[in-house]
């Protein structure tokens, strides 16, 4: 294994201090990789017992009875809920996040831009338990009329229809709160991408008489498209794994329900937080199995997004 790449500036001879220090730092780097590998390995290992004695089909069973005799559980409901809440959050957060990033990079005066960037980033520092508490007691009452309006006038669309005439603790509300939580991620990465647009393209299009929007549409957006996609995906990665706010807001019904204004919904992470305390050994093993699925989903989403961002970064060395 060739760990020793040639140093930047070669000394006359390798001193023992140099060699040890270098090994030390390399070791820390390798340890980080090892932890990531260990996470995957331990989650797989500890989920095996529940996977083996599960009498239901893991992909199609719509129950959660891992501690029953015989154990019977499946992850279809959880995966559906996780993805569905995240999709709602993305449709809300991506336009606003990209709009905010465009405003900060191309519209705002320098001072306002910096302050606004700071405030949006500050949103990322608000703990998720506080999003949950606020969402449950202050945001939900405000959004219920909107949900009623949606189901009254757009109820002919299946996703807005509401058979229960109850509008609290719904996927829509969780989606709104998740959207606020991923907004800083989407906005910060988009901003970074917009900065990388070559100044020449921007100035050339303005010099040719384009309006500001035409400049954005023709010079900025085509260049930034891959970056914006990965900004959205990094936001998605965060939304998929968000636990506490979702656990507090959703009413955690264990069924697949497309109707976003009705109480219900569930997610892998929220289910773990809610069921962990009461679960026995096999129940915990089953929860670990769902956590493993969540880990691999977010891993794939994040890796794809990072891959796209990094590729783009290599291209635009000019800025």
């Amino acid at each position, binding site marked *: 294994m060739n760990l020793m790449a040639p140093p930047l500036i070669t000394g006359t001879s390798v001193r023992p201090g140099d060699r040890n220090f270098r090994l030390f730092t390399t070791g820390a780097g390798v340890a980080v990789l090892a932890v990531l590998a260990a996470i995957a390995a331990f989650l797989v290992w500890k989920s095996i017992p529940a996977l083996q004695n599960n009498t239901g089909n893991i992909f199609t069973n719509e129950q959660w009875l891992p501690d029953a005799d015989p154990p019977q559980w499946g992850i279809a409901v959880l995966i559906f809920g996780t993805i569905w809440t995240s999709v709602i959050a993305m449709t809300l957060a991506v336009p606003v996040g990209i709009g905010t990033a465009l405003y900060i990079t191309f519209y705002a005066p320098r001072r306002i831009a910096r302050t606004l960037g700071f405030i949006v980033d500050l949103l990322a520092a608000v703990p998720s338990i506080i999003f949950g508490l606020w969402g449950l007691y202050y945001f939900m009452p405000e959004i219920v009329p909107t949900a009623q309006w949606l189901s009254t006038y757009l109820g002919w669309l299946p996703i807005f229809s509401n058979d229960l005439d109850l509008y609290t603790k719904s996927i829509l509300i969780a989606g709104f709160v998740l959207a606020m939580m991923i907004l800083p991620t989407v906005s910060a990465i988009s901003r970074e991408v917009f900065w990388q647009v070559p100044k020449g393209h921007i100035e050339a299009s303005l010099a040719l008489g384009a309006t500001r929007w035409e400049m954005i549409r023709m010079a900025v957006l085509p260049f930034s498209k891959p970056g914006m996609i990965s900004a959205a995906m990094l936001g998605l990665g965060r939304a998929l794994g968000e636990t506490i706010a979702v656990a507090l807001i959703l009413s955690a019904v264990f069924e697949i329900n497309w109707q976003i204004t009705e109480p219900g919904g569930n997610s892998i992470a929220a289910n773990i937080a809610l069921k962990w305390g009461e679960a026995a050994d096999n129940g915990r093993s089953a929860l670990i199995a769902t956590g493993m699925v*969540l880990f691999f989903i977010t891993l794939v989403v994040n890796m794809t997004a990072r891959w796209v961002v990094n590729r783009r970064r290599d291209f635009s060395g000019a800025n």
Partner: protein
Amino acid sequence: MVVGVAVGLLVQLTGVTFVGLAPVVMAVIVFLITYTGWTLAVEGRRHATDRFATALIYSAATLALVPLIWILVTVVVQGITVLSPQFLFVDTMRNVNPRAAGGGVAHAVVGTIQQVGIATLISVPIGLLTAIYLSEYGRGRLARSINFFVDVMTGIPSIVAGMFIYTFWILTLGFPQSGLAAGLALTILMVPVVVRSAEEMLRIVPSELREGALALGIPKYRVIMKVVLPTAISGIITGVMLAIARVTGETAPLLLTTFLAQDINWNAFSDSQASLPTFIWDQIARGTQSSLDRAWAGALTLILIVLVFYATARILAARYAPKER
């Protein structure tokens, strides 16, 4: 143009004071239609599109401000009623009936300080060494993959980190639930943040400093320790503070690794230990009015700690940043 934007902002501001969402949305839609129609008639299609897009982008930026302000105001207004020095530093939840007022977060403050302290003590050395490797030594495939996976690790769901420590530390190695286990879970979330920010700071240390010191015949590791690190130290501290702010508010990993406690546990190495986020979680679950009051006061305490770390770090960063783009 200026008049149009002013009208837009005015309409939006008056809308926001209604607080309800519907009037705001209505006001914005009405404004967008009239504004675009007006410019379409006066200036033509291209400019109307431009004005329309501008108005949308301004609306998005305004909308982005709403959640933070709304949350901060709510937490302060709700939390301030119960918050007192007694609540913060003296009282715990031992023998406090959920329905009764009183009680405090002293046990949770102790737990949060210990757990975050443990996470900081472990992740700063590992994170810093990794950052040094990446910026000073790393070339080739190993460095590229560490670089890549550190980025990927920043996106690991926090509950997965807690779950890993549960399977590894508690199930496999047989250690008890403890504040230490919680600290280890937080470490996993903290290391990538420290690495990323420290590496960025090390990279902007001018290479003339390194070359000058090396030309004087100083060994490379001493150049790093005595020249590069001191130059970057303010930025590195900023990064560490941001990382602390990030993990202090984490709830999910703590629920799996140390769970809840109602009294002060000074020993982070055994038994459950409370923390501010799990305190709030517990009080919400009890569902009485006085426990909810306590939850809000706990939330105010938590958000103050997090925001003080975050804001100090950002202000320091802005002050010492070598160049602004």
